[in-house]
């Protein structure tokens, strides 16, 4: 073994993480010493199933009404369909709720000294005083009150076609939603929701989303493998399934 091998933290990881792989997987692939030797399996095979969660996640930031909204909205933004599981199955709601307890959600990663000029043109970047936690609180309340103005139902209670329509109007800036969105521009709310939903679909499962690595499996991203020396030059589909930071295998 060369020095390179001995010092290579990745090899070390692969060796250790092997113990985390369910025995059945090891047996079925006839794995010897390394996951790198795993039998090639098409990464984009039939839609992967998200593992049934043992216990429903309890939100720590969102209220019951907000939680219903988040669950309903992410299921429309990235729906479960013929392509495979969607953001709901991937655990995006749990991911977003967990993010609410990070410095990001309280704006602590941003320069937040006034004066603010919230009406600056978009090419001036983020100029709002609002932070993600507030945007969710205000944006969900606004969307629900807007939704109720149509037929008395909150967003989560609407059928999926109506939900899609409301989301599309928020995305476009929803001028007609005016009175409900006095506190938060619909576009800011929508963009944040969509960004965080995609994060929850595609992040490493260590952050609470992308359960079962369903997002990665859908597009053929191999996750934490991060070693492609033998694949650089090839015009071939990469055959190995994704692995996560914790050593789970898709």
């Amino acid at each position, binding site marked *: 073994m060369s020095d*390179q091998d001995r*010092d*290579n*933290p990745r090899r*070390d*990881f692969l060796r250790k*993480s092997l113990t985390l792989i369910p025995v059945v997987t090891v047996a079925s692939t006839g794995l010897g010493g390394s996951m790198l030797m795993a039998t090639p399996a098409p990464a*984009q095979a039939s839609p992967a199933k998200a593992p049934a969660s043992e216990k429903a996640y309890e939100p720590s930031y969102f209220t019951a009404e907000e939680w219903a909204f988040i669950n309903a909205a992410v299921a*429309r933004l*990235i*729906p479960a369909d013929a*392509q495979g599981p*969607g953001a709901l199955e991937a655990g995006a709601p749990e991911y977003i709720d967990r993010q609410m307890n990070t410095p990001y959600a309280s704006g*602590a*990663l*941003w*320069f*937040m*000294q006034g*004066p603010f*000029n919230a009406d600056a*043109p*978009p*090419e*001036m*970047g*983020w*100029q709002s005083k609002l932070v993600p936690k507030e945007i969710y609180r205000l944006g969900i309340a606004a969307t629900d009150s807007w939704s109720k103005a149509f037929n008395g139902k909150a967003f989560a209670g609407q059928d999926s076609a109506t939900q899609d329509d409301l*989301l599309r109007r928020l*995305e476009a800036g929803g001028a007609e939603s005016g009175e409900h969105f006095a506190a938060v521009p619909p576009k800011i709310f929508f963009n944040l929701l*969509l960004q965080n*939903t*995609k*994060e929850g679909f*595609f*992040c*490493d499962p*260590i952050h609470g989303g992308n359960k079962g690595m369903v*997002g*990665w499996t*859908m*597009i*053929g*991203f*191999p996750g*934490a493998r*991060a*070693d*492609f*020396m033998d*694949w*650089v*030059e*090839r*015009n*071939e*589909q*990469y055959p190995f399934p994704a692995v996560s*930071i914790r*050593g789970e295998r898709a």
Partner: protein
Amino acid sequence: MATIMKKVDAVIVGFGWTGAIMAKELTEAGLHVVALERGPMQDTYPDGNYPQVIDELTYSVRKKLFQDVSKETVTIRHSVNDIALPNRQLGAFLPGNGVGGAGLHWSGVHFRVDPIELRMRSHYEERYGKNFIPKDMTIQDFGVSYEELEPFFDYAEKVFGTSGQAWTVNGQRVGEGKGGNPYAPDRSSHFPLESQKNTYSAQLFQKAAADVGYKPYNLPSANTSGPYTNPYGAQMGPCNFCGFCSGYVCYMYSKASPNVNILPALRQVPNFELRPNSHVLKVNLDSTKRKATGVTYIDAQGREIEQPADLVILGAFQFHNVRLMLLSGIGKPYDPITGEGVVGKNFAYQNMATIKAYFDKDVHTNNFIGAGGNGVAVDDFNADNFDHGPHGFVGGSPMWVNQAGSRPIAGTSNPPGTPAWGSAWKRATADYYTHQVSMDAHGAHQSYRGNYLDLDPVYRDAYGLPLLRMTFDWQENDIKMNRFMVEKMGKIAEAMNPKAIAVLGKKVGEHFNTASYQTTHLNGGAIMGTDPKTSAVNRYLQCWDVHNVFVPGASAFPQGLGYNPTGLVAALTYWSARAIREQYLKNPGPLVQA
């Protein structure tokens, strides 16, 4: 009351590429050197530890390694008539923070410079006449030639362990048919390592570029193509194209960084001390204002500390160097109305255009594979490699496929017209994520009278000091060049015969967008030159006004390059260090008489 430390020979502000190179050179000269770095200690372990580092959310999306803008940012406005607003979230550029600076998480495209770009004004005047250069364009010569810098480019490549293919070595042609660049200037030796492998996307670009008559070559990369030991004894292992490169610490010891390539050697010497979590507020001057006495900084506990020194090096990155000079009263601030003054003058950037080509499922570009410095490029439209006469703009652009690894949250892209969500988005993302080629025109950017840096009158940093203000917008010359490059690169894209193409170029009247990433290649503001009336530092990067302050970094570039800046930044730093070692230390004083 500030605590006063024991005096040292030299204090270095910032420990990125320039700070580390200076620290190595000055300790070799026997000086007692202290480096003050505002951010934390960082290194391959633990910051690049596998598998924790393979985390897109933490690094690319939440931007863990970059400057902490909650403490300090810049303000930006498009013209003197606008009110500048703070860059509240990092966007267009991603400055580094902590030991290694941006050098710890850069990509590693490691170029020299096209020689004409060192004498930009002279060259254009000679070839096209004085009137060809727009009136408000303030491009200048660097005041140093490629021939003078060649040994320093050569040494920097050996320190970085750069992979690449020479075209000529000492006038002998060696690179034909092997990926050498026929437009590259002559070299005194080969690259320390051969070129990296080419991704499939780069191979497609290579073929298409050759098909349309351009001359493709392999990008020089400070990602290793094999094992390497540098002149300082630092060891590197071969890059495995992990795809978590730009914005990440390399877990493989394969990407050149101050931490991997220089710090291990500095750790061995007793006359060097690195103090992380030390945020420098200003350079202190004596009563004559012609000599620095040291610097004042805030330590990790918030205490104000004064570090006296005979020599002060500003290695804090381009715009921090300029801000520190303005905060300290070094050099005359630039005034865009009169055109007088020098500090803040000639702030320039990079003029980018991107084309994305989307393919069917039989073209496997596997975009998660990648390394920050690798790729295939053409220089047919870079520098002055083509006749600018009929086109009426100044500047050139290399074009390339540089597949650095794109990841799912921030790195997916779909053909124009694809919805941003829902089933259609899902299907397109699944269809195209591993079947697309992204190519860039990495255009040079010129300097103009109205693009400059000064101190903001309103916003302040966490220490109560004024933020730096950028007054910056795209000019007519920039848009013209950008459109020309899009057309030329479009030919390559079309020759690849893709299913769909997306063009991201500049439109007439378009303003600088502070929110979308372009590059962290910011230039100027403390430019080098031969005349103290038009430059802030002399050709050795020594302040004209305060002779014991040297300012290495892209702050010294009078305008932006077509190539990425760090190769020239490093060579100029070694060049400046040589002048300090061989001339200044023997006889401290101005190295060039004004």
